């Protein structure tokens, strides 16, 4: 029995570039920036002042009063994005749907607030009702609760590759016939401690994120959420739903090298990308574009350049990094970038890597620099690397372009 094809039938976004995927796509293609001075906490003592904060998000606009009472910002953004995705998919019943969400920490802000109260006012001042709210497991269960999905729920903590992990695990569930519909995505918020920690790792740029630029100085943290509705081809057909894209095979691997830095020869990342291509039943020649992880750190961009060279040989495949505009949204990054991939498939335009000024001879990728590029893109890859040596690559394609899933993806 062959595996099931997996269609994406809806997507939703809460981002620094806009709420809703139309606004997001328009801003990305226009080369706008979502980076601004940090407003949610004082950065004076931290020594860095910029982030991709989502200033426009108004939880009350899409959440009920009960939801507002029980949901933190991280889950609230996820629920908002999920509602948009479900509306676009025109899905009316989700009873048997699984819910899979990626994140680094879930609601890290709630946890820092609890700890701060403890430090400043003593343990007795910490409210039990707030303690009960803390758990990163709740990201998936609360999305499920809010949208009425009653199947399996999973929160996958895969740091900055969490979005791709969620998409990949969700895809396998459907491909293997274990679920027909999955609400899948990722969400992340910026907490002061994490912001300061990245500064202490010497990983944070003082002003802009400049992926693949010779003068890149590191990441700018961002936040946001992106959620998709994915379903089996048969399920979509039966209810007359229109696929936006196909979610192809995905690859993952672990560097087993260093807890914060990628492998200098990018071995794990190369394996993950080759795996995604092989599991989509295609050759590297079929890939039209790669949405890079592109964090703007020295090591990441070098590693990804090696990946491009090793996987595609002499062929120059266009590359872009959404992080120049969104900042590094950590666990949510590859889910938000997944929505950018949908934008590219739909518009046949690749969003630009903004802030690019000085070419780096060691990062000689075909970068879509500063201005969006028109390109024929049928099949693309979404790349992610993360702390812990995590690598994950997903494949997005126009519906019907990929060959049928293969025996290696056998449905049980």
């Amino acid at each position, binding site marked *: 029995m062959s595996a099931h094809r997996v269609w994406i039938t809806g997507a939703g976004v809460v981002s620094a570039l806009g709420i809703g995927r139309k606004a997001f796509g328009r801003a990305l293609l226009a080369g706008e920036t979502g980076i601004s001075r940090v407003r949610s906490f004082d950065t004076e*003592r*931290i*020594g860095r002042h910029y982030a991709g904060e989502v200033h426009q998000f108004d939880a009350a606009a899409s959440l009920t009063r009960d939801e507002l*009472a*029980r949901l933190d910002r991280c889950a609230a953004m996820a629920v908002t994005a999920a509602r948009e995705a479900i509306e676009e998919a025109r899905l009316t019943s989700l009873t048997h749907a699984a819910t899979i969400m990626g994140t680094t*920490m879930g609601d*890290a802000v709630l*946890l*820092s607030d*609890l*700890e*701060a109260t*403890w*430090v*400043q006012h003593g*343990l007795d001042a*910490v409210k*039990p009702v707030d*303690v*009960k*709210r803390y*758990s*990163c*497991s709740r990201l998936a*269960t609360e999305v*499920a609760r809010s949208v009425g*999905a*009653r*199947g399996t*729920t999973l*929160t*996958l*903590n*895969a*740091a900055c590759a969490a979005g791709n992990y969620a998409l990949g695990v969700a895809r*396998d*569930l459907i*491909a*293997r016939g274990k679920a027909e519909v999955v609400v899948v995505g990722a969400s992340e918020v910026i907490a*002061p*401690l*994490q912001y*300061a*920690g990245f500064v*202490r790792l*010497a990983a944070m740029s003082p002003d802009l994120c400049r992926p693949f630029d010779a003068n890149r100085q590191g990441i700018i943290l961002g936040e946001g959420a992106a959620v998709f509705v994915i379903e089996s081809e048969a399920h979509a057909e039966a209810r007359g739903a229109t696929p936006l894209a196909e979610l192809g095979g995905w690859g993952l*691997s*672990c*560097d*087993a*090298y*260093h*807890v914060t830095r990628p492998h200098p020869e990018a071995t*794990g990342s190369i394996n993950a990308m080759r*795996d995604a291509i092989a599991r989509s039943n295609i050759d590297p020649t079929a890939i039209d574009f790669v949405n890079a992880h592109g964090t703007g750190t020295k090591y990441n961009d070098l590693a990804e350049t090696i990946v491009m060279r090793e996987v595609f040989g002499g062929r120059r495949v266009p590359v872009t990094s959404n992080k120049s505009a969104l900042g590094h949204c950590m666990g949510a990054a590859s889910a938000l970038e997944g929505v950018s991939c949908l934008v590219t498939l739909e518009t046949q335009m690749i969003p630009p890597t903004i802030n690019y000024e000085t070419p780096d001879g060691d990062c000689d990728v075909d970068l879509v620099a500063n201005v969006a590029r028109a390109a024929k893109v049928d099949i693309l890859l979404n790349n992610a690397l993360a*702390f*812990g*040596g*995590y690598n994950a690559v997903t494949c997005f394609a126009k519906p019907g372009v990929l060959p049928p899933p293969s025996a*290696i993806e056998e449905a049980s």
Partner: protein
Amino acid sequence: MKCVITGYGIVSRVGIGARDFERGMQGEPVAFVRATDAGYEADTLVAPASNFDPKVYLGEKGLRSLDQQTKLVLAASRLALHDSGLKQDEAWRNGDAETTGFILSTAYPSLEAIHELVRVFLLEEPRYINPNQFPNTVSNTPAGYASIWEGYRALNVTVSTGNTGGLDALCLAESFLATGRAKAIVVGGADSLSPALVAGIGLTGAQIVAGEGAALLALESEANAAARGARQLATILGFGSSTAFTDENSAVHLSSSALSAAIELALEDAGISVNDIDLVVSGLGAHQKADIVELEAIDALLPNAPLAAPKRYFGETFGAAGTFAIASALAWRDGVPAAAMLRGATSQPRMLLITSLGLYGNATACVIRLNARES
């Protein structure tokens, strides 16, 4: 494709390593300790892994910047590799790094590092945050370290679904093996006791006996285990998981109907009926309120099945609870001590249902078949 358990590694209050744990699980439960006596600020009981000395398993080097959870993970991971014969004494035997993966469930990750670094951040200066310690605030770091220490390169995954996480991780491992992403996966859960966790439980008044430990299983396809001549301790037959909520607008949500649905799905997936179950290894025994809800679901579907409460031995181990339950089942192949039984008795249970109730509306169940001990 059927998956089999070919070994396990465990660090807990009951015992460290498969033999020690087995011996402990066949005796009487060791008393829990008062949290205040263990150095925590809470009026509750805890089950710390008091005898755990990471240096015994990991050596002296490289431990300084690791938190307790990571040390539990690394020790259990090494013990699981050794017990399964995949890797022993720092050398891969009939397994290899490229085709072996690692999956960890953790319910409350990074609390130790966040607790400590928030204090540096607030009371001192952000510039005193130790960059070697900062990665410990990232929830997949313990699993990442497991790959760095042992070389698991096929895949590395961290999952957080609270108390059902151990079984959810196992279900993920089955999927990764079935899709040919790894030949063997070391999979399970770990959570550590920490000031924030214990104080938090104390504040909620939940009367949960917080336990500490890591329970990791070596999982592989039946064919792979046979090809390398590995012992097959148990076979995984099916999984089920579900979520349900009532109108009550609370963060914590215990749902017996989610567990009933999960049990029915697991039995269906395994192709068996309630009458085939010799023993239910439940999540009972460490959280009174959750026990009532879990029992309601079990009683509705399996009112007569012998029922064990392994958490009487090691407390609520959160993200590790599911694989702790499976390790308990492995320890009880030749019979379950009366002290572990809530009702009924069984001498040589073969077909087992493992149940776990989440705190957030979720529940997962799993069916396994135990194999007779090889002589």
